[in-house]
């Protein structure tokens, strides 16, 4: 009986059968060693993204019935932008680790927020607008997935041509 009749243990990528086209730059299996420069990229990017979000929220606070349109919109824009960024820039250039940390982890991670979406939904429900609370949380999350997915389509422009 040959020794190797049992398959060797699979690593994650084999188990989950990643499409090579989707081979992640964003969640690299190649472990990165964090450096101070990486931390600085995340810090500065996160500060920029957070500042931009706060300025937008200040400029356009919650509207009718306190529905957080600005918060919802900026999250959806950020989700689409991340899809676009990963598909167009980060996946084609998997070794630009600092660029990914600055733009994806930092700027877009800081620009978008999950906690404010949750607390805005809770406050809506608390104020008697339960349906608006559900719509804010579940609706935004579902549309966010669609936005990220659409943003990451590489051939959308080819179809439009």
């Amino acid at each position, binding site marked *: 009986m040959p020794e190797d009749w049992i398959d060797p243990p699979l690593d994650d990528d084999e188990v989950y059968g990643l499409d090579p086209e989707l081979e992640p730059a964003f969640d690299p299996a190649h*472990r990165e060693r964090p450096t101070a420069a990486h931390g600085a990229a995340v810090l500065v990017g996160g500060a920029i993204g*957070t500042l931009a979000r706060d300025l937008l929220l200040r400029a356009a606070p919650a509207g009718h019935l306190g529905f957080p349109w600005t918060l919802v919109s900026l999250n959806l824009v950020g989700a689409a932008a991340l899809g676009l960024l990963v598909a167009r820039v980060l996946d084609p250039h998997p070794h630009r680790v600092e660029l990914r940390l600055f733009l994806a*982890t930092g700027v877009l991670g800081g620009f978008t927020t*999950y906690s*404010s979406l949750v607390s805005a939904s809770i406050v809506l429900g608390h104020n008697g607008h339960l349906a608006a609370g559900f719509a804010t949380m579940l609706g935004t999350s579902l549309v966010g*997935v669609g936005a990220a997915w659409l943003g990451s389509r590489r051939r959308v422009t080819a179809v439009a041509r």
Partner: protein
Amino acid sequence: MTLVLVAGLGGLGAVARWLVDLLLAARWGRSLPWGTITVNVVGSCVAGGLAGAAAGGHLGASSVEVLAVGFCGGLTTFSAASFDVARELDRRRPGVGAALLLVPMVLAVSFGILSFHAFGG
């Protein structure tokens, strides 16, 4: 001054998110985005408490802005959470995608409501 603090704490929140992600990925691998799930649930719980404290009149508007919009906002992320689900759909794992969308959401909202009320909301 508030804006400076918001930006600074937002940056620190983002660094915390990055470090939690590295730590959990080293421990549990990257087949699931453990870091994003964790920071989103924890950050939402904290933000729920801050919103409760604000609703109860225990916390001023600029403190809420700095802590909730700044730190919790920088710590948590909507873009990566959405993208992670979209990627599971691309991998033809809709069940994993649905779980990745719903489980953190239920946890975040539940803990958020608990701390909203615990802190005076």
